[in-house]
């Protein structure tokens, strides 16, 4: 019954993105009210407005260039991106702290943002050109190593764990779309669950039972089954040993990463202030420009990581609901667009875009309400950030482009 709505998918995309952008600009205006200016004499709001127009041009370009061209140039773009990522490491070598930018005159450019789309295009191109069966482990391994691991490692070195994680997350949905069977997806993520379960014997036992049950009912070959079983047992056994071999401060760091509230003066401070901001917003919020947490700057990183807390404080649950609704519309529409594609390349890229936006949203918002660790991923269309704005709008352009060309092969 809803399917009829998605016949106008382009309208839904445009409306939801516009809505999120408006929300983002309102929130940025609010945070800018208490901070006179950012770099170059412009405040975050004004600076982001400029980036928006740059992004709009990028969107139009992405919309009008025929999809075929992207496939053709995807390897070139990917290569260029890797060079840029390497350049970031080399240029900023020796500097302490974050090394994420390349400075081009007056603006800073973040190649890791470009890498998201570049990896996606290159993978999609590779997977759509040849008939590669990803269910064969060798192929899985090759594609992963070719397209995901380099970007992951470069970005991890910057260091930017959050963004690096994006590339690992991207693998499974994209591969699934390209033909990886659900059962295999399960096998790939199984060790991750075993790792988490390994700290409690009964959880571990339970996880192993599920794996064994799956192996039995899926009628895998004995060889594969044994290998999978052994690998999971090994992961489960070695994790506590590795954990105990970590020094106490290292353990502490991981614990704080996972449960920041245990460190109320350090990492936990941000979470606590963010929750206070959101919670004090109540149902209708304190009103635009009236959030004390935001305006008095108790809320840290309010223009980037914790911008959704600004929405929560000043516009309340109502604002949060609208924001999440817009994201839901956008993501579902993006998946629908992926579904409509006759071209495999377009489909894979579309689902990749949905994954990227969705993951960012989940991690960022989950972080502001204390559900997920603080990783520093921005909220698409809402957080301050020039490169992200341009790339995100480009991806919107791609989606609209693919929607227009949905019947083409």
């Amino acid at each position: 019954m809803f399917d009829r709505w998605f016949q106008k998918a382009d309208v839904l995309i445009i409306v939801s993105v516009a809505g999120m952008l408006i929300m983002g600009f309102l929130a940025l205006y609010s945070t800018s009210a208490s901070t006179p200016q950012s770099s170059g004499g412009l405040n975050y709001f004004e600076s982001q407005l400029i980036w928006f127009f740059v992004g709009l041009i990028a969107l139009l370009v992405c919309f009008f260039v025929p999809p075929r061209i992207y496939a053709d140039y995807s390897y070139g773009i990917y290569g260029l991106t890797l060079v840029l990522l390497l350049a970031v490491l080399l240029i900023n070598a020796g500097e302490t702290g974050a090394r994420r930018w390349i400075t081009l005159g007056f603006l800073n450019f973040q190649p890791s943002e470009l890498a998201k789309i570049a990896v996606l295009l290159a993978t999609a191109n590779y997977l759509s050109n040849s008939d590669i069966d990803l269910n064969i482990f060798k192929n899985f391994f090759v594609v992963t190593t070719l397209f995901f691991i380099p970007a992951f490692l470069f970005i991890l070195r910057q260091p930017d764990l959050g963004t690096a994680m994006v590339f690992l997350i991207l693998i499974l949905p994209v591969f699934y779309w390209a033909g990886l069977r659900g059962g295999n997806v399960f096998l790939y993520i199984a060790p991750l669950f075993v790792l988490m379960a390994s700290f409690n014997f009964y959880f571990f036992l339970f996880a192993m039972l599920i794996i064994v049950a799956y192996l039995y009912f899926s009628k895998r070959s004995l060889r594969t089954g044994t290998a999978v079983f052994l690998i999971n047992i090994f992961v489960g056994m070695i994790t506590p040993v590795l954990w105990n071999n970590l020094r106490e401060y290292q353990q502490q760091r991981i614990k704080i990463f996972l449960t920041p509230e245990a460190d109320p003066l350090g990492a936990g401070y941000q979470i606590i202030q963010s929750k206070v901001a959101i919670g004090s917003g109540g149902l209708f919020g304190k009103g635009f420009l009236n959030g004390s947490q935001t305006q008095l700057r108790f809320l840290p990183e309010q223009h980037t990581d914790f911008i959704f807390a600004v929405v929560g404080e000043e516009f309340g649950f109502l604002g949060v609901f609208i924001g999440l609704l817009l994201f839901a519309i956008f993501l579902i529409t993006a998946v629908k667009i992926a579904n409509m594609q006759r071209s495999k390349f377009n489909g894979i890229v579309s689902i990749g875009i949905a994954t990227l936006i969705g993951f960012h949203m989940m991690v960022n918002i989950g972080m502001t309400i204390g559900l997920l660790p603080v990783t520093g991923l921005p909220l698409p269309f809402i957080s301050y950030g020039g490169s992200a704005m341009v790339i995100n709008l480009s991806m919107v352009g791609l989606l609209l482009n693919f929607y227009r060309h949905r019947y083409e092969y």
Partner: protein
Amino acid sequence: MFIFTVILILLVRFLSIQIISGDLYELKSIENSVKIETKFPVRGNIYDRNGLLIADNRPAFSLYLVRSRTNSYTISRLGSILDLDLDDIEKKLRQGGPFQPVKIARHIDQVTLTTLQENILELPGLEWKVEPKRHYIYDKAFAHVLGTLGEIDENELDKTSEYEPGDIVGKKGIEKRLDRELRGRKGYEFIKVDAVGRVVEKVNQSKSSLPYPGNDLYLTIDAGLQVYADSLFMGRRGALVATDVRNGEILTMLSNPSYDLNIFTGPVDSKVWSELISDTLHPLYDRTSQSTYPPGSTFKIVAAIAALNEAIITPSWRVNCPGYYQIGRRTVRCWKADGHGTLDLLGAIKNSCNVYFYKLGLEIGIDIWSKYSNLLGFGSKTGVELSNEKAGLVPSEEYYKRVYGEKNITPGLIANLAIGQGELLVTPIQMGQFAMILANAGTYYRPHLIHKFQDKVSKTENTTQTASIKIDKIRPEVFDIVKKGMGDVVAEGTGGRARIIGIKFAGKTGTAQNPHGDSHSWFICFAPYDNPEIALGIIVENGGSGSAVAAPIAGNYLRRYFHQKGMFDYEKERKILYEIWKKKKQEEEDKLQIQLPL
């Protein structure tokens, strides 16, 4: 499906934070940004009975430093000007927010402040605030009465919620006892601050309150007499308590040696403090109410009252004093080695004959003696408005049984007590009270220091009334007899050196032997003889005999007191004394001339 789940989880979480726990977080957000600033009240002034200022508050300057605006040069300059530890300043700075003024020094004097103000351009981030500081007009004479102020400690905090950590409260004396009257009420101001502690605006004006100043206190003390009494001691250790016998108001309450109260108004220099603590003369000790001494012969009056009231003797009861007395195997001596000859009670009081009172003590017995000692206010606190008052010690039969064992209670003990020696211990304020009881023939008032309070704002006064106490177990005639004896003491007996021309009064000397060296010199008296107004209790530690040291102090003090009242004229006394001296000299010369022809 997955997207729905994720969005739903997030929504539920937002719901729980914003709607279910919304109120809690709203409170937290208010706590975050709204700070309470305490406004301190001005402490009440202290005046003497005539409205003369004794203690008030003077503006003092406290220095603050703002971290975000200052630099290391400023910190090192301040360190050298104010003689502060640089690490200490930096530690304090780190404790506050970057925009928060942090107090680095209090009670800076005007000169230092002026120096700093002249160089303010080179000292960015430096601020100063005016804060009241206690100021005492008389540095030493009032030290023990007023007591000191200091920062509240943990034990004091437990007592009541009125106090908060960091409060300045009375530590001793009147300042401590009447802290609640003097301190006033704090005011509060609610201010909104941002994350770095910068003040944004004042909020919650309805809940804010202004500080209310403490009550002004009027003491019963006469500042002029207090200072004069201080001068009379001329550096000797001792105490003087003078009360108005008609209402129990303490006119003078002096303990010597003393200390400078103004040392304690700011942070106390640790060197000065340790010097005061280790001073063998114990200047911090209030001798009027916290030191106990054997009373010596002044206590013979108690024995006389007990014997007369119990009808053990009549005033005509006679004893022959050969200069010594045999109790059991011990021989005790009278202070007059030749002996006083045969004496009746009045003669014995006048001449302070030990032998007479040894014998009298044996007649009275320890039970009756200690009963009368207690009746006359000894062995219990007078209740003066000072903390740590001592009760002294009046030994009873039980006391001796406990200490010596039943068999060892000898007649020598009571004989010794009757002349005010032995285990008996009294405080100078008890002696002052005793003199008041004698003056009023058994009626007295609790000795007190508070005359009235006055609200600084409304000027309404609160005068304290002290009810009289009547010792009705002792017949007035008994008091009349000892009063007569004490009149003789001054007129022609051991207290002759207290005598002042024109005013007849009653007194009793005491020379208390003690293990700490020379005898303590005592004198108690009340004046005038008819319709007494004032009672004195005086001790000079290790001063020697009562007649030689304490009695003249009493005389001079009374001269000054009656001079103030227009009842005594220094000039007239000098003339009369000169006449007496001239007459005497003439007589001597006449005698010489008579002898010359021989």
